[in-house]
């Protein structure tokens, strides 16, 4: 049997490579200085979907909610083998917390309507919250299995997976449709396919297309056939304004501080035997070292 799959992917600032310039003087984050990347575990989610499609056939739709620049992760999804890509983008989505995000994503999924498996990354590295998956599942009223390290078996309308639990793992079985969140343990994401890169390198959203001026277009091969990335706004998916963006977010950021290091009393210890002897004796006298 073939499977219809939806993968949720997010473009995130590369928090693993935060450098000095990424933090502004006032301790806030200078997003502009951070490279934007495909959220790592979303690549694992996409890879699981591709593996299923390789084996059984089917269709993979990708949804990403974000600013226009997030079209990049959708192009990269096409380069890896996605069939349909959708950018869920609207100024009104700005400032969404995980609840408002999951609402918007769930509305987009409901518009696609027909699916067997929704795959998410376990968590996004910008917030490390791991909330959007389960919240989306609840809004869709489907079962969820989080922290999936391995899909053990997929047979007809039933799936068996291995998931991490505290100090071990469990293997669970459930019926489709289901939402899975996939961990970095699951697989090694495949590289771009050269053929697909050739085919999709000019894939754009309608608004990207209309931003090109005509003179420029005359000098390229880009035309309407490159408008492959769908662009949906809140009205397109029927999302209520009071439930999206800042308005639809119950949590508010009250305050942001940079991390301050507290300097205690500091003693420089000589890197010599007498230096170490003094230190160890002091710690022994205080019964810190036995």
């Amino acid at each position: 049997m073939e499977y219809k799959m939806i993968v949720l992917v997010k473009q995130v600032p590369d928090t693993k490579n935060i450098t000095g310039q990424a933090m502004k003087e006032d301790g806030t984050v200078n997003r502009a200085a951070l490279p934007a990347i495909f959220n790592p575990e979303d690549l694992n989610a996409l890879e699981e979907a591709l593996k299923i499609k390789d084996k059984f056939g089917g269709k993979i739709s990708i949804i990403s909610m974000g600013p226009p620049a997030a079209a990049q992760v959708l192009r990269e999804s096409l380069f890896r083998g996605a069939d349909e890509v959708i950018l869920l983008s609207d100024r009104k989505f700005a400032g969404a917390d995980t609840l408002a995000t999951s609402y918007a994503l769930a509305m987009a999924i409901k518009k696609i309507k027909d699916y067997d498996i929704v795959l998410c990354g376990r968590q996004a590295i910008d917030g490390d919250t791991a909330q959007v998956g389960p919240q989306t599942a609840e809004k869709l009223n489907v079962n969820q299995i989080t922290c999936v390290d391995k899909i053990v078996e997929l047979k007809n309308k039933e799936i068996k997976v291995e998931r991490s639990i505290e100090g071990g793992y469990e293997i669970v079985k459930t019926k489709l449709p289901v939402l899975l969140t996939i961990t970095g343990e699951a697989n090694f994401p495949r590289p771009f396919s050269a053929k697909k890169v050739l085919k999709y390198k000019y894939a754009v959203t309608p608004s990207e297309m209309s931003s090109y001026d005509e003179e420029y277009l005359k000098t390229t091969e880009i035309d309407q056939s490159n408008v492959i990335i769908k662009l949906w706004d809140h009205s397109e998916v029927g999302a209520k304004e009071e439930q999206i963006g800042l308005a639809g977010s119950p949590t508010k950021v009250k305050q942001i501080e940079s991390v301050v290091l507290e300097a205690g009393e500091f003693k420089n210890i000589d890197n010599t035997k007498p230096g170490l002897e003094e230190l160890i004796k002091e710690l022994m006298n205080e019964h810190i070292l036995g």
Partner: protein
Amino acid sequence: MSKNEVWVYIEQNEGKIADVSLELLGKATQLADKLKVKVGAVLLGSQIKNLCKTVFSYGADTVYINEDANLKYYTTLPYARVVVDLVKKYQPQIVLYGATTTGRDLAPRITSELKTGLTADCTNLQIGDYSAKDKEYKDILYQIRPAFGGNIIATIVCPDHKPQMATVREGVMKMNEPDSKRTGDIIEHKAEISKDLLITEIVKRFQQEKTVNLKAANIIVSGGIGVGSKDNFDLIIKLAHTIGAEVGASRAAVDAGFVSKDHQVGQTGTTVRPKLYIAIGISGSVQHMAGMSESSRIIAINTDPRAPIFQIAHYGIVGDLNEVLPKFIEVYKSLKK
């Protein structure tokens, strides 16, 4: 029953309560004192009434218990059903969960159904006031957490929706001293668990007690990527054995395969507060320090005198660990004699 209690979701697994739940009872006691309300504990499972005693002894005033054979092992849908049911009925103002795989599976599902906020991985919780454009809120839960890979600390609030919900990692909050004389009310609940909620079947389960107990250790000897190789990590282990310490590590050392993940200290590892923490070949990233900065004494050994770890260390030794550690072991052994 007071409607606006502070609740803790008690995670139990085959009759054993997770440490993080008992730690949260400690925090809940403080928050409840501030708010002048009581502490409620939510306990789900099959034949678990015997656990109430423990839950009271760590600070709960009321235990809301729901026993059902279908709740023997955790699966999302029936557990979420019961907690949502209880929250709707008794309306606590705060619900806290451990940031375990279970807590992180359950809490977002519940918040979504209750349409309220949730803040993951809080490192601190406080009560305070909040003012928005045209409104003042009294006694709101400040949910404090590192964000952006730990480079900033954000205070999140959820002023207009109840309950306010947060998850907290193990080791971050301190347990109360258990008081075996404490008791309280037990409220038995029986949520209806319909068949369509029982669609996850557990085929197999494997779990083992952690072999590393960083939280209980008085002394931790921790190695970073500066140790250089898995073989060289033996030097860290040797020092730890010599002075009777547990072995810790930075994430970089774990990622490089020097030691297993159980040893990781920091924001995404274990939070520790030993009497003595020896950081060796560890630069002192914010994420690492988030998990060890409250150690009573810190010794840093690093070749780079500008390494950030020296800013929180009490004793600093600038030098190559390959030279310092053998000397340290030798001197220690000679003083022990």
